[in-house]
C-alpha cells in the first residue's frame, strides 16, 4: 500500500476556530471553579481553578503589554516546567505575541543564537543560573529579563531585571482598571497566528525555528485526545520541556482542549516521587525516558534477593507469553499481575496511566513489550516538529514494530491526514499538516516541499496491510541496492539481533549489490545449549556455527524480519561466521558497533561466494592470538539462500 488517508475525529471537544487564549477564557467561563493547575510546594499540592489561572494570565498580559509586548513580538523563556511559565505563555499568546522556549540546560552560546535569531524582546529566566547565562552575553537586544526565583539575585544591579511578582502585582492593577482590554486583544488574534517558535536541533549547522500556529497546536492536541481517548479533567504531570513541540501540544494546548489538570513537580529532583504520588492518567515521554524507567526497575531487581528476583522474572515471563498468545488473562497472568505488576505500576506512578505515550521513533520492541508485561498500555506516537503528530497506536491495537495508524483530525479545523510513500521509501505528508515553514528561513522550508505540494518527512517507512506505519530509518541513513531498492540497515540488524540465536549481524547492502545479504555472528551460548539438547556434536565455535540445525534457526529469524520488509529489500542470503567478531581485531568498536569495512575485508571470501552464487566456500580467515602471533585458518562455510 502506498498511500493512506486518515479520518476526521468524532470527539465533540473541537477547537471551533479558537486560539489558545480564547479557549482558556471559554474553559474558565464554563467551569470557573474547576481545578486547572496544581503545583507541589512545601510538600503539598496547591491548586489554581480555571478562573484563578485566567486571572493570573490576564494580569501578566496587562503587565507585558505595558512593557511594550505586542503583536508579533517574541518572548523567550528558559526554565524548568513551572506553573508561572505556563501562565506567562498564555499571557504572551493573548497579546498576539509568540513564545520561544529553551531547555533549561541550554548553553549561553545557544541562548545568544536563539535570542538574536528570534529577535526576542523579553527573556524569562527562571532563576540565577538562567539569568547568569543572559548576563554573560553582550549585545543582546533584550529589553527586560523577568525572573521567577530571586534567590541569589539580591545584589544584581542590571536594570533589565524584573521580578515576576512585580509583574503580577502591577498587571493586576492595569487589568482591573481596564478589564475590556483583554477581551479586545483576544478578538485580534487568529488561529493562523504563530504561537510558538520551536527550535529543532539540526545535526549540522545552527538550529532552525519551526513556526507553530494556534491551529497547529490545537489540531495536534485533538489528535492525541481523540486518538487515545483523553478524558475530561485528566491528571497530567508536566514533565517534558515545552521547548519540545510535544509539550506545547499536550501541556499547553491539550490542557485547554480536553481540558486536563496540569500538575507541576516541586522540582526536577522530586519528579519521581511526585509522579508516584500523583499517578497521572496521561503521560508522554521520550523513548529514552521510558528506557530509563525500565532500566531502573531492572537495576532494582538485580539488587533484590534471589526469591524476589525469581518471582519478578516469573511474572514477566508469564505476562510476556500471555501478550504473545493474545489470549485473555490466564490464572497465572492474573496472579503475576496481582503479586508483582501492580506494585511495579504503583512504584513507577503508572497505576492510573490510561494514556501512556512514547513520542518519537526508536523505542525498542523489547522495552515496549516489557511495559505491556507490567500492565501499562504503552502506545507509540509518531510525528515531527514540522509536520506535527501523524500516527499512533489508537484503539486496542499496539504492534510494537509499528508506529500505529493515522490519527484523527479535528473536524472543525481541517482535512484528514493523508500520507504517501515515495519510491525512495520516504514518507510524504500529503495533507493535514499545518506547517508554515521556518522562521526567517524560507529556503529550508521550501526544500521540504514536493512537486505535488506535500511535505517530505525525511523518514523511510513502510505501510502495512493493516494500514499502520513501520519506521525504518532516516532517509539519509538508508542504503540502496543496485536495483534502487532502499534497505533499512539499522532496522534489519536490530531485529536480527533480537533473535536469541544471533549475537551480531551485519547486512550487506549498497549500490554494488543486487540483493541484501547478512553475515551472522551466532550466539555461542544459546546455540551451544540448543545443539547439546539435540545431541548434535561440535568441538569448536566454527563447527557449531556451521551445524545445519543452527543455520536453520538463523534462517527462521531472517525470514521473520523479511516478513516486515518490502520484497525488494529482503535479505536473500546469509552466512554464519566461523569466528566471533572481535573488538581486539578491530571488527567491532569497544561499544560493540560494527566496523563494516574491516568485516567485509576479513570475510572477503564469504562475501564473494554470496554474490558469486556458490553453495559454500573455504574461508581463509586471519586471526590474531592473544600472544600476538598471527595465523590464517581455513574453514568451510555454507552459503545459505533464502527461499523467495
Amino acid at each position, binding site marked *: 500500500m502506498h498511500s493512506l488517508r486518515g479520518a476526521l475525529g468524532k470527539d465533540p471537544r473541537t477547537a471551533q476556530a479558537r486560539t489558545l487564549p480564547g479557549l482558556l477564557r471559554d474553559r474558565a467561563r464554563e467551569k470557573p471553579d474547576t481545578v486547572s493547575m496544581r503545583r507541589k*510546594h*512545601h*510538600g503539598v499540592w496547591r491548586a489554581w481553578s480555571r478562573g484563578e489561572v485566567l486571572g493570573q494570565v490576564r494580569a501578566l498580559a496587562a503587565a507585558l503589554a505595558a512593557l511594550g509586548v505586542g503583536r508579533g513580538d517574541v518572548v523567550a523563556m528558559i526554565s524548568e516546567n513551572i506553573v508561572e511559565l505556563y501562565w506567562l505563555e498564555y499571557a504572551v499568546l493573548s497579546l498576539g505575541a509568540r513564545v520561544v522556549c529553551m531547555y533549561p540546560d541550554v548553553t549561553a552560546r545557544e541562548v545568544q543564537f536563539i535570542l538574536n535569531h528570534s529577535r526576542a524582546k523579553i527573556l524569562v529566566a527562571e532563576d540565577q543560573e538562567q539569568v547568569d547565562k543572559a548576563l554573560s552575553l553582550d549585545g543582546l537586544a533584550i529589553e527586560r529579563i523577568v525572573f521567577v526565583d530571586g534567590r*541569589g539575585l*539580591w545584589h544584581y544591579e542590571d536594570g533589565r531585571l524584573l521580578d515576576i511578582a512585580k509583574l503580577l502585582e502591577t498587571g493586576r492593577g492595569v487589568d482591573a482598571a481596564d478589564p475590556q482590554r483583554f477581551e479586545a486583544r483576544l478578538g485580534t488574534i487568529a488561529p493562523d497566528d504563530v504561537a510558538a517558535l520551536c527550535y529543532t536541533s539540526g545535526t549540522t549547522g545552527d538550529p532552525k525555528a519551526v513556526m507553530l500556529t494556534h491551529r497547529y497546536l490545537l489540531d495536534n492536541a485533538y489528535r492525541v485526545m481523540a486518538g487515545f481517548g483523553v478524558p475530561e479533567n485528566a491528571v497530567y504531570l508536566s514533565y517534558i520541556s515545552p521547548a519540545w513541540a510535544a509539550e506545547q501540544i499536550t501541556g499547553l494546548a491539550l490542557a485547554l482542549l480536553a481540558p486536563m489538570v496540569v500538575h507541576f513537580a*516541586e*522540582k526536577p*529532583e522530586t519528579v519521581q*516521587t511526585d509522579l508516584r504520588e500523583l499517578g497521572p492518567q496521561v503521560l508522554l515521554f521520550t523513548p529514552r525516558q521510558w528506557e530509563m524507567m525500565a532500566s531502573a526497575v531492572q537495576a532494582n531487581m538485580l539488587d533484590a534477593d534471589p526469591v524476589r528476583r525469581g518471582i519478578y522474572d516469573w511474572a514477566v515471563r508469564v505476562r510476556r507469553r500471555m501478550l504473545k498468545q493474545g489470549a485473555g488473562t490466564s490464572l497465572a497472568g492474573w496472579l503475576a499481575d496481582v503479586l508483582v505488576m501492580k506494585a511495579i505500576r504503583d512504584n513507577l506512578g503508572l497505576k492510573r496511566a490510561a494514556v501512556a505515550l512514547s513520542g518519537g521513533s526508536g523505542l525498542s520492541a523489547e522495552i515496549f513489550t516489557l511495559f505491556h508485561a507490567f500492565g501499562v498500555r504503552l502506545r507509540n506516537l509518531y510525528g515531527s516538529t514540522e509536520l506535527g503528530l501523524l500516527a499512533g497506536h489508537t484503539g486496542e491495537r499496539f504492534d510494537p514494530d509499528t508506529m500505529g495508524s493515522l490519527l484523527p483530525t479535528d473536524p472543525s479545523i481541517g482535512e484528514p491526514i493523508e500520507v504517501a510513500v515515495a519510491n525512495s521509501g520516504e514518507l510524504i505528508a500529503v495533507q493535514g499538516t499545518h506547517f508554515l515553514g521556518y522562521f526567517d528561513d524560507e529556503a529550508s522550508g521550501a526544500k521540504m516541499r514536493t512537486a505535488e505540494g506535500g511535505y517530505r518527512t525525511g523518514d523511510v517507512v513502510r505501510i502495512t496491510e493493516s494500514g499502520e506505519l513501520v519506521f525504518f530509518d532516516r532517509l539519509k541513513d538508508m542504503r540502496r541496492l543496485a536495483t534502487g531498492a532502499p534497505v533499512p540497515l539499522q532496522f534489519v540488524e536490530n531485529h536480527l539481533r533480537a533473535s536469541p540465536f544471533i549475537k551480531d549481524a551485519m547486512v550487506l547492502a549498497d549500490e554494488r549489490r543486487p540483493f541484501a545479504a547478512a553475515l551472522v555472528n551466532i550466539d555461542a551460548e544459546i546455540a551451544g545449549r540448543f545443539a547439546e539438547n539435540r545431541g548434535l556434536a561440535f568441538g569448536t565455535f566454527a563447527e557449531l556455527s556451521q551445524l545445519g540445525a543452527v543455520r536453520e534457526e538463523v534462517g527462521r529469524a531472517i525470514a521473520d524480519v523479511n516478513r516486515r520488509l518490502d520484497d525488494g529489500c529482503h535479505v536473500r542470503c546469509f552466512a554464519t561466521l566461523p569466528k566471533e567478531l572481535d573488538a581486539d581485531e578491530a571488527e567491532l568498536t569497544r561499544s560493540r558497533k560494527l566496523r563494516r569495512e574491516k568485516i567485509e575485508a576479513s570475510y572477503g571470501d564469504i562475501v564473494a561466494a554470496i554474490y558469486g552464487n556458490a553453495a559454500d566456500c573455504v574461508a581463509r580467515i586471519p586471526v590474531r592470538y592473544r600472544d600476538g602471533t598471527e595465523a590464517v585458518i581455513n574453514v568451510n562455510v555454507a552459503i545459505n539462500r533464502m527461499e523467495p
Partner: protein
Amino acid sequence: MTAPVLEARGLELSFGAIQALRDVSLRVDAAMIVSVIGPNGAGKSSLLNCLSGFYRPNSGTIVFESQDITGLPGHRRAAAGMARTFQGLQTYNSMTVRENVLSGFHTSMRGGLLDAFLYWPRGAREEAAFTEEAETIIEFLELEELRDTVVGELGYGLRKRVDLGRALAVRPKILIMDEPMAGMNADEKGDLARFILDIREARRIPVVLVEHDMEVVMDISDEVVVMDWGAVIAKGRPDEVRRDERVIAAYLGQD
C-alpha cells in the same frame, strides 16, 4: 552607627594556670559574617563557648541585642535567639529530615504534652504552623526531595545541612557555627558556603564562624578575627588580614 547584634568586650577566661582568653573583644553587626581563625589551642572554641553561654568568662561583658547576657545560661540565650551548631552532627538519625527540622521548633512550642497527646485544636494549629515554617526551611536548604528520608541514610554533607535546618528552626537572631566544614569534600563545602551566604542575604541573620578552611573563610567572611594564645592578634577584612605580618607568622605562614 546602629547597635551591634552581638558584642563581647574584654573577655578573660582561665582554667587554672592556663589563660584561655586574654582581653578578647568581638563585634558582630547585622547581616555580617564574622570568622574566627587561629591555630589549635588559640582559644576559638573557648570564645564560642563564652558567647553561647557554656562557659562564663572571669571578666568582661557580652551584650546581645542591647542586653547584657554575660550571666545568662545557655538555654536562655537560645530562647533569646542565639543558635549554635557544633562540630560533628547534632541530628536525630532515626528521624526524617522534616522531623529533624521540626524538632528545632521545640523552644517555640507553647502547647504542653497533653495538647500534643490529645491533638486538641491548639496543638493541631500549632503543628500546622510549624510544619509550614519547617517546609520553608527545607525549601531554603534545598532538601525537598529528601524530606521524608531518614537522616541516618544521608551522607555527612547533607546531615550537616539538616543540622543547620534545626538551628534555623529556633528563628535565630544570630547563628554561631563551630567548624561546619570539617570533614566535608570540596562540593559539600561549596554548597554549605552558599547556604551561609544565603542565610545572611535572605534572612539577614549574622553568622559567627569558626573554621579551619582558609579558602572558605577568605571567600565568604566580611570580617576575620585572628587569635593566637588566647588573644586577638588581628582583625579586619579578609584581604587586610591576609597581608598582616603577625597573622602570616602565626598562622597563614605555616600552611
